[in-house]
């Protein structure tokens, strides 16, 4: 069978992702992977989840193992709605769709809104999983907010983009936070130009220092002034970083007309997300456990961020710069212009350290001298060891080039 000739046009545009290759390479026990955005397995609340699963199965096993509402179980949507609601914004459970991880949220939003060739505004660099999910649409990517706050919103809205995508808190890969002024002006422009934005927020609750900034979703709600969500921002949340990624439970918050469309698409995609996992996520999170767990994760991850920053300062040559995130999992490193991070990766693998080279995080072929490091997966002493090894490779390369 000549399958090549049978592939759909979109399938031809798919490429094997580095993400998968990296996940595979994680099987080796010697390699220290600073590549993935996975939590340290030792930080997973295994006992709590086990107890939750026991309660779910003994109290409502039949229901938890059945098909369920495509929008998600009511208990979990109410739980999320309550957590997200603030003084200025009331999130209605009907605005929420449970997704199979926030990756599915990104996919569904793309399928609901994007036509081939649409103009989409993103930061550059941006999240690799979104670039992969939307690659099939051959989008006209337009970078924004890449030179500080100089962007003229009236100008970037011409011609009118179809969609914007941002990780507003502890951005993947830079670790940066969108300042409040940017959020305020952005939501005004969204309404004025009738352009929706997807706010992808898997890390927002993992803040290690500094003051929290309201989400774009909340800024939009404040602008709309009705107390409900404003409708211009689509919000993607996830339990992956604060509870367990293996459960694949994420959610979208969206304007109701869009929720209706997204549900139709989700039905065709997988009918509903695992009902059992939704019950387990709810049962494990309730009664304050999720907040306790987040508080505990914050101290653990803060130590790791501090250890990695300290190691970067100690071992990396001064020509190399890096971001200093107040939360999340990632640091973006910038090498001297002439250095290529793919070449660095090839050498680093030999020393048992891997990371994500910047070219796969950038649009328009930029960023070949950047790389993303994750500090979430290992204890401080291992992170220090990895950075020391990486620094040696960088110094070798610098010496060769000079």
């Amino acid at each position, binding site marked *: 069978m000549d399958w090549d000739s049978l592939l759909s046009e979109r399938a031809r545009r798919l490429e094997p992702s580095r993400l998968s290759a990296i996940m595979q390479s994680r099987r080796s026990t010697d390699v220290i992977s600073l590549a993935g955005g996975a939590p340290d397995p030792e930080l*997973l609340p295994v006992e709590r989840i086990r107890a939750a699963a026991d309660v779910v199965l003994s109290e409502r096993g039949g229901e938890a193992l059945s098909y369920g509402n495509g929008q998600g179980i009511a208990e979990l949507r109410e739980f999320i709605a309550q957590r997200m609601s603030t003084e200025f914004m009331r999130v209605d459970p009907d605005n929420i769709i449970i*997704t199979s991880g926030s990756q599915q949220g990104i996919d569904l939003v793309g399928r609901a809104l994007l036509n081939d060739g649409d103009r989409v505004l993103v930061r550059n660099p941006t999240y690799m999983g979104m670039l992969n999910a939307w690659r099939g649409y051959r989008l006209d990517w337009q970078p924004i907010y890449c030179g500080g706050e100089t962007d003229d919103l009236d100008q970037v809205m011409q011609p009118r983009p179809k969609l914007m995508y941002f990780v507003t808190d502890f951005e993947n890969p830079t670790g940066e936070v969108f300042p409040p002024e940017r959020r305020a002006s952005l939501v005004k422009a969204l309404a004025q130009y009738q352009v929706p934005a997807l706010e992808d927020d898997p890390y927002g609750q993992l803040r290690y220092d500094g003051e929290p900034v309201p989400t774009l979703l909340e800024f939009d709600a404040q602008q709309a002034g009705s107390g409900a969500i404003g409708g211009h921002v689509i919000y993607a949340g996830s339990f992956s970083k604060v509870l367990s990624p293996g459960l694949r439970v994420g959610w979208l918050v969206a304007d109701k007309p*869009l929720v209706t469309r997204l549900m139709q698409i989700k039905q065709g995609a997988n009918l509903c997300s695992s*009902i*059992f996992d939704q019950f387990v996520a709810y049962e494990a999170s309730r009664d304050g456990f999720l907040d306790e767990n987040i508080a505990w994760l914050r101290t653990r991850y803060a130590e790791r961020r501090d250890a990695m920053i300290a190691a970067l300062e100690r071992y990396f040559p001064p020509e190399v710069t890096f971001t200093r995130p107040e939360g999340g999992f990632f640091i973006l490193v910038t090498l001297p212009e002439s250095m290529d991070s793919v070449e660095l990766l090839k050498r680093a693998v030999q020393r048992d350290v891997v990371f994500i080279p910047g070219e796969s995080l950038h649009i328009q072929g930029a960023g070949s001298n950047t790389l993303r490091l994750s500090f979430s997966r290992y204890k401080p002493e291992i992170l220090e060891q990895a950075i020391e090894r990486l620094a040696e490779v960088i110094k070798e390369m610098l010496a060769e080039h000079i």
Partner: protein
Amino acid sequence: MCGKNDLFCPWYKRNHAAMQWDTRFAARTAYMKRSTIREILKLTARPDVISFAGGLPAPEFFPVERVQEAVDLALSERGQVALQYSTTEGMPELRELIAARLSDARLTISPDNILITTGSQQGLDLIGRVLVDEGDRVVVENPTYLGMLMAWRPYALRYIPAPTDTDGLNVDALEPLLQQKPKLIYVVPNYQNPGGFTLSVERRERLVQLLARYEVPLVEDNPYGELCFSGSPRPSILSIDANNLGISTPDGHVIYVGTFSKVLSPGLRIGYVVATEQVIDKLVQAKQSADLHSSTLDQFITYEVARDGFLDRHIAHLCEVYRERRDVMLAAMERYFPAEVSWSKPDGGLFLLVTAPAQVDTTELLAEAIKRGVAFVPGADFHIDGGGQNTFRLNFSNARPDLVEAGIQRLGDLLKEALAHPVK
């Protein structure tokens, strides 16, 4: 005057116009519509309605205790793995188990031929993404499975209906349809949803010859094959196709879609696709973007429950109780349905299809049926040739025997009235 960033500026508030979504949706969403099934399920949530509408396995037979043991084992021995991200292809042990279950004397399936999906619905979605472009022709049985129509709706496909009878897809009528050069053929060969018919082995053998002659791929969707009430399951089209090509690997024309939803639990959302590695590779890439991977915990549970022969014993039990429910339903239909009405008599699966005389419109009948406390799925939506208005689908697996008789009696009365007093 308001400051540039004054969130409470009244001028901005007045101008913070609501989003006009109609102009922002992607073109492909224009082909979507609300699912009839969903609307119906909402209506039948009332406790006084005896519903034959769902496609559901019976929750009272879920092996809850075994699942509980599986969760305890998975989380106590490998909790840090079971709750972590995992590979897109799926848990290796589960893929091995599925490969071994589907391999037989003629066909050897490797774990590399298998992708774990978030229910078999995702298998259909991924196959659609990877194999069909807008406007492609696809041959399907008439009637066909609604979930497939739902998954592939964004592509505005041109469906070619193939006629069916009690032996399933009429293979003799297929050849002229293949001359229209369809992109693929979609078949539910066992205890078809909604028809309840099964493709005979003799027809399967002639079907794979056509696949080879016309070089056309076939999607074999087999959620019900293991729910076989008498005799042994028929060999898969996947296996017969390989045999026809003289190979012992799944490298022919068939992409096979399977699931644990009907034999274990639909709430765990674990299905799988079996295909040649080249196709699996593309499906993996599509799945990476769709949801990275299926629930690690659910895969661990499925594996733990399925191993050691438990699943086979459980399936044998399900077959016994579902057969009994089918028998109760068929006996009640014989007793209460008018003579002008006929129906399929499946020897497995979950569904049967009822055909009333042409003047009966079952969509109209449904509203009255629900008033009287009984529900079914009208057949029109399953028929892509515009026919089937006089048919409806009944589910027997999820109907408690003590309620089936009352439900069928209500339906029988309704059918008799509809025949005596035709609408219009």
